[in-house]
């Protein structure tokens, strides 16, 4: 008998909160992206935990799609970072105001 799912859910909530904190506090855009990855991983952990608790494979399928979306998000986000870095020579969030229309 493996561990109760509540432990996993609690851990995932804490990791999600740490990711949120990093997203709010840090100014380097790359580190902010990493914090988004932290939040996505916490949600993945809850999906897998619910998949085990409810004996439903749908949670794991959802994690599968989350991985794909995360990969696409990182690719496009880093492309934007590179494009802005070419203009501004820095990659803090304050430089992104040049994206306004």
């Amino acid at each position, binding site marked *: *008998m*493996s*561990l*109760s799912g*509540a*432990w*996993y859910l*609690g*851990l995932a*909530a804490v*990791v999600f909160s*740490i*990711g949120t*904190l*990093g997203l*709010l*506090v*840090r*100014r*380097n855009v*790359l580190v902010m992206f*990493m*914090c988004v*990855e*932290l939040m996505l*991983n916490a949600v*993945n952990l809850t999906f*897998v*935990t619910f*998949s*085990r*608790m409810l*004996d*439903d*494979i*749908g949670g*794991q*399928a959802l*994690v*599968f*799609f989350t*991985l*794909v979306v*995360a*990969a*696409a*998000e*990182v*690719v*496009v986000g*880093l*492309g934007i*970072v*590179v494009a802005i*870095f*070419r*203009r501004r020579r820095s*990659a803090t969030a*304050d430089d992104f105001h*040049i994206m306004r229309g």
Partner: protein
Amino acid sequence: MMVTPLFAATTVDALTFAVAAAIVLAGAIGVVVARNPVHAALMLVMTLFGVAVLFVEQQANFLAAVQVIVYAGAIVVLFLFVIMFLGVDREENVAEEPLRGQRPLAVVLVVLGLAGLLLMGFGAHWSVGARSVAGASRNASGGDVAALGRSVFTTYLFAFEVTSALLVIAVVGAVVLARRPGAVRPGPDPDTDADAMPAPITGSDTTGAQEEEPPADADAGGDADGGAVARSGAEPHSEEVSP
């Protein structure tokens, strides 16, 4: 929901969870507090491995393998590549606070949110419903890989196809975003592009391709073709082409 004590499970499971949870938390905190982005990326790898261990612990073996391959093998490598490509791996001045009072406010908000989440999850029976009666079982024959494959290609087939479209769009978007502005339009001379930039930089120090353009407009007709050909190759070698 009842929180059973850790030692109610078998010792190996409890120990594995404790070690993996410690790794995950240490990595997550490290991502937030690391000054150097490279250190943050390596801390992120640590967290991802810990999450993969927790996946294995819950019999999600395929997802654990994919987690290591895709996240640690592709996404973090992409992060590190961009960090080193841009040269932003110098230390950030964390003590500098551009918005007054932002950090205490963020901490208060996050702690409140976490408290609410835990209260709703563990106090109010909010986060768990009845057991599934519609979805495919996780313990079908063939293990989690067969069950996941069957589910993805039957129940979630449309989402799977949409995902492929999303990946194609992401690839096209990355290529469009990452190529140099001079390579898109070979027609006009790059000086007007440099003037259109909001950054206060002149043509001499923006990109290497513009350094070697002749400054005179008199021979723009003759040289624009050569420059256009060199730039439309869209290769990094075009910087070294001297007119």
